[in-house]
């Protein structure tokens, strides 16, 4: 039973990420801004790199896990600037998809980080950690921070769920009738950014991206209304993370790729089911009742 104890904290971490990411994933797929999570993660990384260079270059202590105060402050600052830019540039005068603007921000942020940290040694090793993280070694402190951020953002989104939902539903028509929709758009991106910073710090960019897109895609295919979509996504995400953590422990393989593969298999099965018309009708009936 040692193994159960060993994966308890990582599973809690996955659970929190799944709960909030499936919700954001459905929003993100409807808005067709799939890669916003990777973009926000690299913008936050750029911010913390700038903060590190400006304020902590003298510090000898390179603790891996704890974020310093200034780097964190800078990553929040950079995220809010980016959120503001994304809000402004979704405009009918700008005839390119918002995803292109986001992609450009992603490329610039990543390469600027490379320029800034060029002199740092061992950069290659960090790439691997940055991609898949080290969720098996999650600490109590990291888990608490994640839980705190997920709770705050989650409660905020539950209270104002109608605003955020109608904002996303009408995202592609430019005559938006929602009061002060720019403010709400900004709050959407910024609150998502807060979650991404904490989640990526624990699980890595790729794993967080997988939790965002794969279960939510299944949800969009099979679910009807928002609630049934959320339940489909949550079930898929929780199953994959629990099975993935157990497999990776039993077979001694890295957990993140296994979880991603399992999420992919679940999605493929769901897609094949969706292709059977009879099942599609049944799923629709269940989700509508």
């Amino acid at each position: 039973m040692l193994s159960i104890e060993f994966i308890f904290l990582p599973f809690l971490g996955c659970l929190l990420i799944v709960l909030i990411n499936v919700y954001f994933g459905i929003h993100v797929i409807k808005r067709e801004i799939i890669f916003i999570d990777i973009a926000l993660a690299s913008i936050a990384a750029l911010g913390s790199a700038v903060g590190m260079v400006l304020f902590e270059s003298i510090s000898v202590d390179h603790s891996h896990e704890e974020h310093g105060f200034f780097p964190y402050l800078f990553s929040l600052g950079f995220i809010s600037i980016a959120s503001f830019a994304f809000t402004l540039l979704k405009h009918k005068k700008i005839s390119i998809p918002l995803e292109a603007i986001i992609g450009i921000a992603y490329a610039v942020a990543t390469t600027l980080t490379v320029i800034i940290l060029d002199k740092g040694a061992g950069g290659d090793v960090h790439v691997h950690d940055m991609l898949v993280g080290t969720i098996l070694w999650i600490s109590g402190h990291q888990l608490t921070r994640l839980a705190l951020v997920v709770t705050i953002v989650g409660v905020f989104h539950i209270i104002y769920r109608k605003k955020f939902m109608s904002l996303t539903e009408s995202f592609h028509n430019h005559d938006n009738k929602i009061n002060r929709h720019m403010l709400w758009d900004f709050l959407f991106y910024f609150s998502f950014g807060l979650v991404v910073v904490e989640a990526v710090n624990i699980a890595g960019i790729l794993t967080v991206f997988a939790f965002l897109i794969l279960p939510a895609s299944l949800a969009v295919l099979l679910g009807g209304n928002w609630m049934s979509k959320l339940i489909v996504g949550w079930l898929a995400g929780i199953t994959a993370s629990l099975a993935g953590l157990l497999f990776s422990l039993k077979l001694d393989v890295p957990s993140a790729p296994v979880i991603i593969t399992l999420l992919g298999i679940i999605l493929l099965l769901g897609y094949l089911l969706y292709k059977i018309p009879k099942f599609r009708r049944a799923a629709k009936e269940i989700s509508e009742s």
Partner: protein
Amino acid sequence: MGTLLFLAPPIVACIILAGILSYFGNHILSRGIIFIDIAVAQIAALGTMIGILLGFAENSANAQIVSYAFTIIILGIFSVMKVKNQVLPQEAIIGIFYCIALGMALLLAEKIPGGSNYITKTITGNVLWVTWKSVLYCLLIFIPVIIINLVMGNIIKKVSHGELAGNSMSRTRIYDLVFYITFGIVIVKSVPVMGIFLVFMLLIGPASISRIFVRSWTGRIIWGWIIGAAGSLLGIYISYSMNISNGPAIVSLIGIATYIAAFAKLYMKRADKNILKQINFGN
């Protein structure tokens, strides 16, 4: 003069690529599948890893054939998955493919000695290492791509804008496949040389700037080419004089220019319409 000769092949490579990527970039913006080139590069890298696992040497022709075959199969699946009433946006499907390809690559990396090298390899690249030989080699491969796209250009353009007559799905899929395969060849060839971010930026950045200001299709492609080439030249010059890597310099330069252009358009007054008219060649 010595430095100029040394810089000539990378400059020529950038100018050629800026042109071909401006063409594909405009298509990709119309289709809204921004991240397809990063996904294709990742799928090709996974294909190479599969080739190595099958026992071929890394740079052998066999490993390359496996990589191309794998990429073409995945692109085929991708074009078949396009349906009339798309529930899941195509960009989401690209995200899923990218995610799973990278996850599989990480899993396979455990099985190949020094395997994690293949994952980081696609990220960097150095324009300065481009030689005349590789420029020529790229050009030889690009010529059929260019010819195919010139011949079928009108139909592919209609497909990209969802205007194909009759809207027949099977015809759409065939032209999609032609588009994706020619695009895939360009990406697989150019990413190892230039690095994934430079290719991504040359694809999206100049096309975005020209699309914001220019209305005609040909105008957009030509202006994208000019902007991409100018950005590359300026970026190489900056990187040379400030002693920073050239790829990141070009990427940051074009990227920031795109943001400036977008905000300029957002706050542009009506008086500036004359300038727009001139850019649009009077249209």
